[in-house]
């Protein structure tokens, strides 16, 4: 589904990603871990198409398409979803209106008519239940006055509504208390299928207690320095990032 080859990218003259290679297949869950400043969020921003970052080399293909050639909205139409680390407020626009616009635009790009409002509301109610979201939520303005946890849950709600092929969860666990974490993880697990894939970007291992990844990668200094199965996350939790980073630093010293 997603192939990243020798991706080099940065902001202005500062190279952040120094050659990333990653392959994600349908049905898989990958976790990308690493200390602060290792380039985790940069990677997710580039996949989503944030133009603040400049790609200097390498390529990304998504279901056979050159992803870097597509505008951010075209990537979304093709099934790429990013759960933002810091979701943005859109004052005056209700959650239901925003999601309706989002789905309508996606369908328009696919040459489809908008979904009847009745059906859309029905779907929203189902997904709200899945994520234990209370009544009254749909008419609140996008992320305005939301707590950190509510914002993250709102991201996963949109993911549930948009049914992406590839979902990237950027630090979705930060700001969530343990109950919210469980609900969000439960939602992600239920949405999992043989046709979609998830990339979880996280600093801590705790989300991975609830969503068990097929692969774990350690990102450090703009490179994936170690890959393994779910057990790698536990090992990291135990030994700390120093365990990998010291070795790496020696190599490049």
């Amino acid at each position, binding site marked *: 589904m997603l192939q990243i080859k020798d991706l080099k990218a940065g902001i202005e003259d500062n190279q952040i990603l120094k050659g990333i290679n990653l392959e994600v297949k349908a049905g898989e869950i990958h976790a990308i871990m690493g200390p602060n400043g290792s380039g985790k969020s940069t990677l997710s921003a580039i996949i989503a198409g944030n133009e603040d970052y400049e790609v200097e080399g390498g390529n990304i293909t998504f279901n056979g398409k050159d992803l870097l050639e597509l505008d951010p909205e075209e990537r979304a139409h093709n099934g790429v979803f990013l759960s933002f680390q810091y979701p943005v407020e*859109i004052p005056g626009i209700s959650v239901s209106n925003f999601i309706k616009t989002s789905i309508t635009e996606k369908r328009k790009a696919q040459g489809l008519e908008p979904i009847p409002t009745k059906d859309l509301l029905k779907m929203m109610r189902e997904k709200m239940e899945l994520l234990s979201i209370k009544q009254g939520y749909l008419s609140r303005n996008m992320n305005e006055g939301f707590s950190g946890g509510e914002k993250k849950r709102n991201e996963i709600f949109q993911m549930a509504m948009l049914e992406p092929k590839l979902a990237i969860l950027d630090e979705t666990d930060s700001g969530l208390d343990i109950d919210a974490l469980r609900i969000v993880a439960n939602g992600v697990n239920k949405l999992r299928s043989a046709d979609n894939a998830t990339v979880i970007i996280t600093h801590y291992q705790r989300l991975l207690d609830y969503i068990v990844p097929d692969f774990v990668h350690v990102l450090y200094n703009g490179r994936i320095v170690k890959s393994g199965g779910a057990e790698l996350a536990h090992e990291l939790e135990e030994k700390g990032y120093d365990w990998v980073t010291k070795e790496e630093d020696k190599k490049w010293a």
Partner: protein
Amino acid sequence: MSEQKKQSEDELLEKVTSTEYKYGFTTDIESDTIPKGLSEDVVRIISAKKNEPEWMLEYRLKAYKSWLEMEEPNWANINYTKPNYQDVIYYSAPKQKPVLDSLDDLDPEMKKTFDKLGISIDEQKKLANVAVDIVMDSVSVATSFKDTLAEKGIIFCSISDAIKDHPELVKKYLGTVVPARDNFFSALNAAVFSDGSFCYIPKGIKCPMELSTYFRINEAGTGQFERTLLIADEGSQVSYLEGCTAPMRDENQLHAAVVELIAMDDADIKYSTVQNWYPGNAEGVGGVFNFVTKRGICHKNAKISWTQVETGSAVTWKYPSCILKGDNSIGEFFSVAVTNNRQQADTGTKMIHLGKNTKSTIIAKGISAGKSDGNYRGLVKISKGATNSRNFSQCDSLLMGDKCGSHTFPYIEVKNNSSKVEHEATTSKIGEDQIFYCNQRGIGTEAAIALIVNGYCKDVLNQLPMEFAVEAQKLLEISLEGSVG
């Protein structure tokens, strides 16, 4: 910001400035036009053409004499070449049969104009439950639903008809809220106004439909000076909407209207405006000069609510105001003012609290794009006797691009210590992070801006009657197409 991104934003901004004005057609109908220029004779001609009674002529002449002594105001933060008032045509009326028995007798060309404007009178009659009065150039040409309204004792007609048919009401109220001498433009209007709408809602009557006036400037070089007088008698209720468009012309056209609202005890007036006069082209050539005086007076427990969505005009000078004379009366002002290209607007409101326990709310949303300049100017005045009064003002500005400007000039005067005044102001730009967030959800940049702007204006748009809120939303989208901040 990357080079590529900067470039695409520049392109989008370019596109904004080339967005076309949709209503820029002219109508080829014969009109009865008098020579340009203003003099006592011209005032007499206008009055004579309208077969006005002597008292009306006197009112006009008095106003004209005042105007001669007055100077055009220049305190507003707008820059324009002052019109040569001797170069304006003060009266132009579409030629038509003197009396229209039914709308079918309308000039077919004029009917076409209405269709282009999206006001099919027949459709309006059937669907929207809106009574429409249409003012083309200077004369009211069609008023629908007159009979239905008359059953309830509601008078809704052109002001010329009102002068003939209801002189006692016009005489009693005309110029009581906006005296002819009030300002330069109100004096000019009082001297030369040729038509406008008149409305009277009797005691205790709730007007069963929206009342609407559609203003259209057509003839080249003409000024349009409408006069609107709306009286809501005790305990009555009315919602009134006005819309405005004009053809695209290279020269500036002058529009100086006066609107007076009278809300008697316990009455409720809602006055909404969707103003889309021609704003001039991207270089600032042409467009309407819009110098308008709008004011309402509230008696005991009465309420006046002004809502305006302003996207047009080259220059706007306009401050819909409320005089809260009666105890417990309420004044509201909800405004969205968009400026783009080279447009300039100096607009806001005045809330004059005289009665006890009076309340006012001001929500003003400015949006500036292109090389435009948007200003909010507002006065909240709480007099000594207006004890326990309250005002809440919120003035927000949204900037798009880096070539536009926005200023807020709030004036607050409070003369007692039991009243409370709150003022909030913000200035923001549409964030790139907001746009990217929308993009990531599959919403393209144009649609994202429309969405964000609609959200920003929601508090104001929500005040408009449903069918006009949709129209206003579309209008905002058109006037801001492609602008990225």
